[in-house]
């Protein structure tokens, strides 16, 4: 069962994934997609919070057919979009704060409703969040 559903306008511009990462700890993110009926996750992007805000265009090359882009958006239907976001603390016994907000937008409008937001503090070496949404 998907955490959320992101519904795109097939005639709109390419969707953008926006991840903002707060907190002073190190944050590493991975974005993955899964084609319909495959069960296999493929990583399409990864990075960290040396930049607090990351914007990633959902590259049409990961959704066949590759061209034109509007067709790529149509072809996204049935795919899953997943994320793995991990915060690493710099001291193991001190509660370090974390927060992140994940949005998927199209034409500056949220298509993932509601956006995924987590915040809190952690005491262990790391704190991870895995999840996915269905693209329709």
């Amino acid at each position, binding site marked *: 069962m998907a955490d959320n559903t992101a519904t795109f306008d097939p005639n709109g511009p390419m969707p953008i994934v926006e991840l903002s990462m707060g*907190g*002073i700890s*190190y944050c590493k993110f991975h974005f993955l997609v899964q084609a319909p009926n495959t069960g296999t996750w493929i990583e399409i992007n990864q990075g960290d919070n040396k930049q607090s805000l990351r914007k990633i265009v959902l590259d049409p090359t990961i959704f066949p057919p590759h061209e034109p882009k509007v067709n790529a958006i149509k072809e996204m239907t049935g795919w899953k979009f*997943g994320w*793995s976001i991990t915060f690493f603390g*710099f001291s193991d016994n001190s509660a370090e704060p974390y927060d992140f907000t994940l949005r998927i937008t199209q034409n500056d409008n949220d298509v993932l409703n509601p956006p995924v937001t987590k915040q809190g503090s952690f005491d262990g070496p*790391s704190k991870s969040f895995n999840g996915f949404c269905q693209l329709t």
Partner: protein
Amino acid sequence: MKDYIYALSTASLVLLWGMMPQYSVAQGHQGDTKPASSRSFDFSVPASPAFVTLGVSPENVVRPISPRLFAASLADAIDQSGRIQSGVAIDAAPFMATTTLQQYRESSVRRFFANTQFSLGTTKGQSSVDEALQGAVGIHFTLLNTSDPRLDSTVLKFYDNLDKQAMANVGFPPDARGAQAKDAEIARLKEEQATKFRQAGEQGFVWTAAAALSSRSDSSRINDLEYNGFAAWTSLSYGLGTTVQGIVHVRGRWDEKVANTNKPGDLYSQNSFLAGLRLRGSIGSIKTSLEGAATFIDRDLKATDGSNQPTDVAGLISAVIEPRLTENLWLHLSLYSEFAKDLKRNGIGFKTALKWGVSQKD
């Protein structure tokens, strides 16, 4: 965990009481003739400025390090005047909570404020000689830290690799259980590779400074707290290679009121100054240190013939071992010797001290 800390705290107190025959000699010299060796010889910069000012710092990982977002400390200790003291302190670096890693890495101003720590602590005397309640508020600055892990691309690369290995080992179950499995794998991998990580963290210069105001209530009522002087100190450390670290520390304490054991109920004031050097390294997995320090104390107290007491000058050398008991628990064993100015009073002696502290991992 709290119960464990309390149990250890009590155990340490019992052990310290077990050493009281040695300290009873020191107690006999309290007040106007107190030997320098009965003072705390921990000349590091503890995490809690309040506790160092009150002389009961539970932090004995004696390095100038960047503060934590929040820390609470308990202490059972023999303070600088040889009194049994119990205390609690809270330390916080509030600006750290509102700073992102990107801001921390790119702005020296944000970095300075993020590393500014505020401290509040109280202690209560447990002996009949002095049962006063004491409090302190302090502030701690990190002026320079060339081994700051948040700025160290090696450390970030280390985390990056941990993440990559964990993803490869556990895959991507896209749910909460998958996230927990990833965290468990990261913890396992980090422990496996921790030695390399810790050694990398000890390189470079760290320079810190701190100051604190102190208060005292002889009635033990908070309403009766009165100004009891202030303290200021600075510390500089440098990693000499991968296993040895040198630390220089200078500390002053002014207008401190001390109970005169020769006149019950009487207080006198004193100014004290300490300068010390420490070399800290490893023997296997156990941290060891050699320390040398000079202490100077000026007391506002007359001798029996009416003359002013001379400045009490003493030198201290010590050896410290810090075996790690559990994840965040270190046992500190010290053997030290005092070289006092007045040889008739002390000469050269040896004592042991046992301390405990919940500390940040190396």
